[in-house]
């Protein structure tokens, strides 16, 4: 039982971290609450379906094309829509939410409302510490951890990554230091969409693919990011894993019915007691 919670919780945690990191990055760098974030996750799954199933491309190529497509959509949304209303946080939230619904209805018209399945890279099961888990889930975990480490290295070690963090800390000062803030914004947007897109392609094979699949991950990512402290990347990772263990633990020990309620209650409680989140510094809304 303990190992069950540890292993399945870690897998869910890595998935949640993938979703939440991009959301967190956008808030940290651009102070944007981008409610279109869940749609990247959905679009990646549908693009993969389009390329791999309908067009019968090789899976690796299909996934690469999907991720490029998602990043392109993200930059387009940022240029055409978000950029215009950046000043008002509520306008950004409503605009991106409207676009998310628009995308959902568009996808429903193009692909139909039914559940689809997309192919996975691996099949079969693997056993770890006596717990049997499907290989697809193990792959999702590996990819998730790999990308978290890659992001950590990118942010900490490369010039481009550090420029993003500099803009997050103080855009004006970053400009004075010769950092191109516009490029940093675009890069953060791309990375954010890429991470959510990867979550879509590695997780969609064992979850459902349908036009409404964006909403729940979006709410969870939102909650994780606030739980971890808006703008704190490592707070988000911490919160994602906590949520992963909590959900797995509750659904194994109690029932899947109460799983979401426990999670939501924790979020509400943290908001009321410590609105700045676990690792957040101060309340700047």
């Amino acid at each position, binding site marked *: 039982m303990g190992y069950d919670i540890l292993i399945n919780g870690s897998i869910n945690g890595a998935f949640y971290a993938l979703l939440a990191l991009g959301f967190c990055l956008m808030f940290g760098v651009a102070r944007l*609450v981008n409610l279109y974030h869940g749609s990247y996750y959905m679009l990646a799954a549908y693009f993969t379906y389009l390329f791999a199933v309908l067009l019968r491309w090789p899976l690796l190529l299909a996934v690469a094309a999907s991720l490029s497509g998602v990043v392109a959509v993200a930059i387009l949304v940022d240029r055409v829509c978000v950029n215009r209303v*950046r000043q008002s946080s509520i306008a950004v939230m*409503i605009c991106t939410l409207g*676009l998310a*619904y628009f995308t959902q*209805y568009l996808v*429903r018209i193009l692909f139909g409302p039914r559940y689809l399945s997309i192919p996975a890279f691996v099949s079969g099961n693997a056993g770890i510490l006596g717990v049997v888990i499907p290989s697809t889930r193990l792959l999702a975990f590996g990819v998730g951890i790999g990308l978290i480490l890659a992001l950590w290295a990118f942010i900490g070690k490369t010039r481009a990554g550090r420029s993003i963090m500099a803009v997050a800390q103080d855009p004006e000062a970053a400009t004075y230091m010769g950092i191109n803030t516009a490029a940093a*914004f675009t890069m953060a947007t791309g990375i954010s969409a890429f991470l959510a897109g990867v979550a879509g392609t590695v997780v969609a094979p064992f979850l459902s693919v349908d036009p409404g699949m964006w909403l729940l991950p979006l709410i969870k990512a939102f909650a994780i990011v606030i739980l971890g402290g808006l703008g704190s990347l490592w707070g988000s990772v911490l919160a994602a894993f906590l949520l992963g263990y909590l959900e797995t633990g509750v659904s194994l020990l109690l029932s899947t019915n109460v799983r979401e309620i426990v999670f939501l209650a924790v979020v*509400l409680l943290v908001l009321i007691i410590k609105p700045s989140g676990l690792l957040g510094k101060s309340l700047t*809304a």
Partner: protein
Amino acid sequence: MVKLFKPLNVVVVLLVLLLAMPLLTKNSYLLGVLILANIYAVYAAGWDLLSGYTGRENFGYALFIGAGAYAVGFISKVFPVQAWLSLPVGGLTAAAFGLLIGIPCLRLKGPYLALATLAAAAIAERVVMIFSGVTGGEEGMIGIAPLSFEPLNSYYYSVIFMAVSIGILYLIGHLPEGLLLKSIKQDETAAEAAGINTTFHKVLAFVVSAFFGGAAGAFNAHYMGYVGPDAVLNSTISLTVIIMAVVGGTGSILGAAGGAYLLTLLGEFLKRFGDFHLLFYTALLVLVVLFMPKGMINSLALKLPGPGSEPVSRPVSGPGGHSGQVGPGRAGGRQ
């Protein structure tokens, strides 16, 4: 001549038109749509009093609507309560929830409050699902006394309910209380420094906003004869209310209510496009947010010329005026 277009005159004309509608058409479907529009107008106006005035966007307004409606559902299990009693009861139940949510969330705004209210409403929805023995779960509860057995009376009741509710909300919004609430949105610290008890006024706005949501939810329960998550508690309802208020324009009560009519009627009109109607609907929402940041009703009202309207310098701070403003996230600018 031009004075005819003053907002209040327009409102009076529209109200008379609403009351005269049954004389103009015998189409009971259209009247049904208008009843729903009246209910949604109260939702949007009630949402606006908290969110548009104090700048605290409530993403879980359905919690208050649901509280009012479910209160009616529970009472109806015991005895067939009539609307005149259940509207205040539903409103007060929701107001209690407003107090319950409002006080702990006082410090929160922006995305924090959005998530807190979203979570609170989602918890309420799950609780209803888990205790399905009492609440009927997804099926909901039926057997609530209808407003009237005469459809035409139901229609008139809805117009009266809407007019009274929005009248009260409009008065609150245009009395000094409305200005106090707006001062909290502008600059809370400055408002406190000016001796305003912001805590009291924020809680008051929460409670009044919740009251009207609950009363309208109770009205909805009587009109549909049914209470269920899809009718009064779903997150889609919260989002619809926000969309209506924002499309109409926030911070003026009438703008938000107007948005409810616009979108309800537009939604009906677009239904002829089948699958595409939701696509058009959401596209319009995005366009309005992008090009009319003050909302459709507010933007159009400002553009009406006339001696009684705003001075010429108005457009500077109007819809296009924010372009010169540098927001916190934009400092440094994008080249």
